[in-house]
């Protein structure tokens, strides 16, 4: 089933987004201009594999230095 995000309302710098029966806040600046209360919005999130690999590598290196022996 498709995930539907709806703008419930604006509160100061926040947009209150409804996902099913839950609401959560996102900064209003992330919304396109003209977005209004009650609008269905699309939120797309993608995984940045390159950045992930880089961060894992850094962490791995730091961890290796951390272990004794």
């Amino acid at each position, binding site marked *: 089933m498709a995930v539907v995000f709806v703008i419930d309302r604006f509160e100061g710098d926040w947009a209150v987004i409804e996902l099913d029966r839950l*609401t959560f806040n996102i900064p209003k600046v992330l919304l396109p201009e003209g977005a209004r209360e009650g609008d269905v919005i699309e939120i797309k999130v993608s995984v940045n594999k390159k950045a992930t690999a880089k961060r894992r590598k850094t962490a791995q290196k730091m961890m290796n230095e951390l272990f004794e022996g």
Partner: protein
Amino acid sequence: MSSLRVNGKVMPGKLIGKSLLGLFQRCGCRILARLVALLLLAVLSIALITGCALPEQPPGAETSGGQGEMAGSPSTGQEPAAAGDESSDAGEGVLRAHFLDVGQGDAIFLELPDGRVMLIDAGPNEAGTKVVSYLREHGVKRIDFLIATHPHADHIGGMDAVIRSFDIGAVYMPRVATGTKTFEEVLLALKEKGLKAKEAKSGVSIPVGEGLAAEFIAPRGSGYEDLNNWSSVLRVCYGDVALLFTGDAEAESEMEMLEAGIPLRADLLKVAHHGSSSSTTPRFLQAVRPKYAVISVGAGNDYGHPHKETLKNLEKAGVQVYRTDRCGTVVFRSDGRTLAVESREK
């Protein structure tokens, strides 16, 4: 800060969690930190002027002070009634207004002098169960008048649960729709029960019975950009006592009410929009001249409600303020001549 905030509460990565988190955190962090700092400051500076921050003031003590404009014998010494005991004189000429502590949202339960029941809003989605059980604890089987002030989730979220749990009489709401699931659920619940709604707008009266009057004084127009300004505002008069329930009406709606030249004065004001500075303009406050004000607000909410400007204006006007985040559920009692706080939770 590795969590999203859901309805003002930190929500550790559940459901929406992991995917959205990173995206919004970075953008939200600075604003969030600023908000938290602001909130702390506000809490510190406000602590002294709210009713419930005064520990030396026992419940009911307010009745002995400043009875000035209210005639009749003050009901001093009225003890907070024990749970379940509060409905003992329902239908015997007593009006009670319960401002439920539903976190960030509104839910107001009125026991009318003739024993009938009115509910104005039902809190956010997660408060539905609480509202239903509170009403049941007070012996409610039927809600004679159900009012949805406007279709924001913090006001109508719990309403589908309420509609499904009780026998419902007349339903009033402004004629405005929104695209949320929360709103759809309310409409579905009404449809399931075969209920029809009456339009809540200025000039519409609710048939609350003899000796009591309840009239909507807003919305006065239509086509408002912000759903808050669609809020139905209800003025209830019982004898010499007037109560004003404002939903989330903002400055635009307040201005229209002022310009209409209608009576706005009230002994008790339900402060609009959780004490946001976009409502309760000085001119409006001056016209209402309340003795008491209730701010329905969630502790530590993300929006900095109530805003310090509003609290300052209320203080300047000498209004006794009760906040649900500090007092819990607050109950007022009136016999038509006097009005007093009957009980509060915290």
